[in-house]
């Protein structure tokens, strides 16, 4: 099956900074891919290259089997820029009608599109009077025009309230079910983890890892935190029995590697009546993310 998007060994240099280095990435039809990375990691640069807005120095890019920015690529790709802007003098409806006409779609679909992103009532007001989240929704509405086969969304949920975010991801699920691929960037780890198929982490222009959350969890191999609560009056004996732990007020904190988890738990269970409870905390999403996304010197 042909990939929707193929990047191989993509490198992009701005005058003194290397924004992307040897990035290789494939996106299959119907796949939702989240691009994560620190500020300045190269996410927006990568997206602009895919759209053909900026050139690249070396490597290969294929979008829907064509060159980025070529006719077939433009016809099948929708984009939501990082800070989307529209002419303030036009109304939401007029702006969407304009974009519909540019894609050769009937302009009467505009009100339906605005309704899909929850802007049915504001469509007749000028965009100059819109809030940031409302402008973002106009941006989403234009990205839905004409059943695109690839949606490139740069921080699509920034400025959206929690309910709108949920609606947005529901919208994405529908698009992916119809076979559209989605490449989105985000700083909101929890929502991205739950609603996409694959995470791609960029750090300083390099693709450091990719995979599902459980893949990344395994790769990172971060220690698991254990909190052992002693029975009343038994804290001294517990501290002696588990010398690698650190007594902190009412509980003992210790960590262990993924592969020692069961052995450690059975040892704690073997301590018998001096232990009243055990809490196991796996590494959080943020821990895994910062493990991969470390910048130099951090």
């Amino acid at each position, binding site marked *: 099956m042909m990939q929707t998007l193929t990047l191989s060994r993509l490198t992009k240099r701005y005058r003194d900074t290397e924004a992307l280095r040897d990035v290789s990435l494939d996106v299959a039809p119907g796949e939702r891919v989240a691009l994560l990375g620190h500020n300045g990691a190269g996410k927006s640069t990568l997206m*602009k290259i895919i*759209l*053909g*807005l*900026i*050139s690249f120095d070396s490597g290969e890019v294929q979008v829907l089997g064509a060159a980025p920015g070529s*006719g077939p690529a*433009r*016809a099948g*790709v*929708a*984009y*939501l*820029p990082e*800070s*989307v*802007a*529209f*002419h*303030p*003098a*036009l109304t939401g409806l*007029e*702006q969407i009608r*304009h*974009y519909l*006409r*540019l*894609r*050769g779609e009937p302009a009467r679909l505009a009100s339906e599109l605005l309704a899909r992103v929850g802007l049915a009532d504001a469509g007749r007001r*000028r965009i100059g009077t819109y809030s940031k989240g409302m402008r973002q929704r106009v*941006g989403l509405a*234009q990205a839905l025009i004409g059943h695109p086969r690839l949606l490139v969304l740069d921080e699509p949920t920034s400025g959206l309230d929690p309910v709108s975010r949920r609606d947005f991801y529901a919208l994405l699920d529908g698009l992916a079910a119809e076979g559209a691929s989605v490449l989105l960037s985000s700083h909101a780890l929890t929502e991205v983890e739950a609603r996409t198929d694959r995470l791609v982490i960029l750090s300083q222009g390099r693709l450091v890892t990719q995979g599902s959350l459980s893949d990344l969890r395994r790769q990172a191999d971060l220690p698991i935190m254990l909190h052992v609560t002693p029975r009343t009056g038994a804290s001294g004996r517990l501290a002696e029995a588990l010398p690698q732990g650190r007594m902190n007020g009412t509980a003992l904190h210790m960590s262990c590697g993924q592969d020692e988890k069961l052995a450690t738990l059975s040892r704690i269970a073997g301590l018998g009546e001096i232990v009243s409870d055990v809490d196991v905390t796996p590494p959080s999403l943020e821990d895994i993310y910062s493990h991969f996304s470390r910048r130099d010197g951090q």
Partner: protein
Amino acid sequence: MSRILATARSEFLIALRNRWVSIAVAMMVVFSLVLSAAGSAPTGALGADRLSVTVASLTSLAVYLVPLVALLMSFDGVAGEVERGTLPLLLTYPLSRAELLTGKLFAHVAVLTFAVAAGYGSAALSAIATDSAALAGTPALWRLFWTSILLGAAFLCLGYALSALAQRPSGAAGLAIGLWLAMIVLYDLGLLAAIVADGGGWFTTELFPWLLIGNPADAFRLYNLAASEATAAAAGIGGAANAIPPMHALVSMLAWPVLALGAAVLIFRRITP
């Protein structure tokens, strides 16, 4: 073509909202009426009808006003999109940069057409109302009308080129004012000074006519004056007008919008959104 029309439609709406349509119409009407009222005195002396004299005055007005209005509307054309941040999204649509500029040109030419029609129309009505023979000047008025649109189109396209060159509205506005001063005011002064210095030599007889039609504003003036003896007399530069075939001036007026639009597209292509 549908993409050009879609762009033109939105741009016209924007011009309407930004009051450019009303500003342009008001400017043209006010200046045309003032001029036709002021120019009503010497009618009998020249033996021309009232409308032909009005057309002569309007020609001198249009040389200044039409390029100014055109530049005012177009200097924001590319730089405004860059500044607002609307360009990256627009350029991911199946719309070429040439189509985008052509769409803007269609809309702005339409605005200009309204303004010129309203201005000349009101001046013509006031001439016809006071002089029953004035209808004889209708062909001259018609010629002035469509050549004004051509002149405006040339300066609209020059405005887009400057806009793409500057990439910022403030810079583009400065360049537009500079261009207007250079091409409309200083160019003629320079030529005049050169003629005086030359004293009827090679420059005056050989080069000067070409330099004159090389400037779209001078070509516009020449074409309109050459076509009518009476108006040429009224404007006082009949001598220069007679030396150059009107056809050359027309070719210059047709070539300028095309060349300037081509230049604007080329400069626009160099912008990375």
